């Protein structure tokens, strides 16, 4: 049988979705390095263990349960098929079974599954930056299970998967998940933070915040650049295909917003902080990327710099505000993913163009085109998602706190999570005195005949 053009198009679309998903997967490294950069040197190995563990728990739970809840049918609250996802399995009908023209899992549908998984994993990763340097390891796998089986899948189902929020008005517009992914993650972070409290030494007895600077701005920068890279999968991949080259427009929209976010944060930092705070500039990029996530498929290019620049301003103001409110958020996720996620979702209600509302078939144009109703729909989406995630997360973290404790003890926090929870420093040469680290003294027999350990051959008596 000769292959058809439809076959070719399906394979192109599958290729793009997989490439995009791989880029999004790599955002895990972005979060890891953003967090590592913002941590102190005694808490860095723990971030590596954490990111690998969470991503892995999430992968297995999403496969077993989460995907089914999110996309296994078009019911109003949750899906109900697709558990233990596998080739040849049958799915309940939904927008996506229609899109892929199949209710039986095949290759292209597998690409969709994986693309949605990496979104769940990003959302989960966002939770933990706020809890850095003091949370117990045990909290990760437990919350990761609940999050990947229930919390994220519910929000995803409500907005992406055909649930009730896609039915109010013309539907909530959230192209790639400013709310579904980012606000969800930040809300989980807020719930954890309220139960966790600030890091030891963050607030003096006078109540004033003390800087606890992250130990490594280059690695922070690596994180930001990897996230920026990954976002070219995140937003443009959410086209779920290559039709009309729309995804290329989304690439530009995404990039313009991010660029404006950097400039917005730079200027705001200069004005409010009287310096060019490196972390804030990076946060500006992230916040703008978060903000443009929802509108990236709905707005024309000219709107992107506006949305991004505002996000850049918001994140700087937000970080300063939360710092005052004694909400100790070492990476600024509450601002960059929470506030900017809200702003981004609402901004659809302002900037969505008629062309793109109709292209996507979701919702209507925004305020600047003379329609106020979409903004209200967007607000409902934000509130619904926030309440759902906050309640479930607070309950889960509360339970963990009651059963295991949420926070390492003071001694362990002072010593650092690396040595306390992982048995070894992440930077041993920084923390273990050199004579003890080398300690050839343990080998006196070997020592005596050994030549004097001159660093190089050139070390000979000068006289």
């Amino acid at each position, binding site marked *: 049988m000769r292959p058809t053009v439809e076959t070719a198009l399906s394979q192109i679309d599958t290729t793009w979705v997989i490439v995009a998903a791989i880029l999004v997967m790599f955002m895990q490294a972005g979060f890891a390095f953003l967090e590592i950069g913002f941590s102190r040197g005694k808490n860095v190995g723990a971030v590596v263990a954490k990111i690998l563990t969470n991503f892995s728990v999430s992968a297995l739970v999403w496969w077993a349960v989460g995907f089914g809840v999110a996309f296994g049918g078009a019911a109003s609250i949750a899906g109900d098929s697709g558990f233990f996802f596998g080739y040849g399995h049958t799915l309940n009908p939904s927008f996506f079974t229609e899109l892929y023209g199949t209710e039986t899992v095949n290759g292209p549908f597998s690409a969709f599954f994986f693309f949605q998984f990496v979104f769940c994993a990003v959302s989960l990763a966002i939770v933990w930056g706020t809890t850095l340097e003091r949370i117990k390891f045990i909290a990760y796998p437990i919350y990761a299970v609940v999050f990947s089986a229930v919390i994220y899948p519910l929000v995803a189902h409500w907005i992406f998967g055909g649930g009730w929020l896609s039915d109010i008005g013309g539907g909530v517009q959230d192209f790639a998940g400013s709310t579904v992914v980012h606000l969800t993650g930040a809300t989980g972070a807020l719930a954890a933070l309220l139960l966790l409290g600030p890091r030891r030494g963050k607030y003096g007895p006078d109540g004033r915040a003390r800087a606890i600077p992250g130990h490594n701005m280059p690695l922070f920068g690596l994180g930001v650049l990897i996230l920026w890279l990954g976002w070219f999968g995140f937003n443009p991949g959410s086209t779920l295909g290559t039709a009309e080259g729309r995804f290329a427009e989304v690439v530009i929209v995404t990039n313009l917003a991010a660029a404006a976010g950097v400039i917005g944060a730079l200027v705001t930092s200069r004005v409010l902080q009287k310096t060019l705070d490196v972390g804030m500039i990076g946060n500006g990029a992230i916040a703008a990327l978060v903000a443009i996530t929802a509108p990236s498929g709905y707005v024309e290019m000219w709107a992107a710099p506006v949305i991004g620049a505002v996000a850049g301003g918001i994140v700087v103001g937000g970080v300063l505000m939360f710092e005052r409110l004694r909400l100790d958020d070492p990476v600024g996720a509450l601002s960059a993913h929470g506030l900017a996620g809200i702003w981004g979702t609402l901004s659809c209600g302002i900037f969505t163009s008629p062309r793109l509302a109709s292209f996507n078939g979701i919702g209507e144009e925004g305020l600047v085109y003379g329609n106020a109703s979409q903004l209200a729909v967007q607000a409902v989406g934000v509130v619904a998602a926030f309440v759902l995630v906050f309640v479930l997360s607070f309950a889960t973290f509360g339970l963990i706190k009651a059963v295991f404790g949420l926070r390492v003890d003071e001694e362990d926090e002072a010593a650092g999570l690396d040595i306390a929870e992982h048995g070894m420093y992440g930077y041993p040469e920084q923390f273990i005195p*050199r004579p003890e680290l*080398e300690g050839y003294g343990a080998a006196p027999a070997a020592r005596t005949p050994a030549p004097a350990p001159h660093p190089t051959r050139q070390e000979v008596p000068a006289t």
Partner: protein
Amino acid sequence: MKLVSAYIRHEAFEPIRTDLLELGFPSLSIMEVKGSGRQKGITERYRGAEVTNYLRPKVKIECVVASSDVQTIVDTILKHARTGAVGDGKVFVMPVEEAYRVRTGESGEEVLQAHPGAAAGVG
């Protein structure tokens, strides 16, 4: 009371510490130093330019003990730090006039080392 202050190779430290502990002298401090003595420099090359290093990493031990214990400490250090090659280092002895234990505020020779007998021998 005396301060025994020794500049030695890193790999000599562990047997010294072990022996001193057995002899009842657990208390000491160390720090990273760089020293020069009878050694030529090392020349490093980088992108067509050079930089020369005359200093080598050493570890400095500082150990305050009762005057009567000085020789024990010095002998222990000399025993383990010697390889016979250039760069083995030096040991110096300096006077100390008073000593305080922060935890209790006590002063005098008895605060110097954990081992009760260590200072007791001073008489």
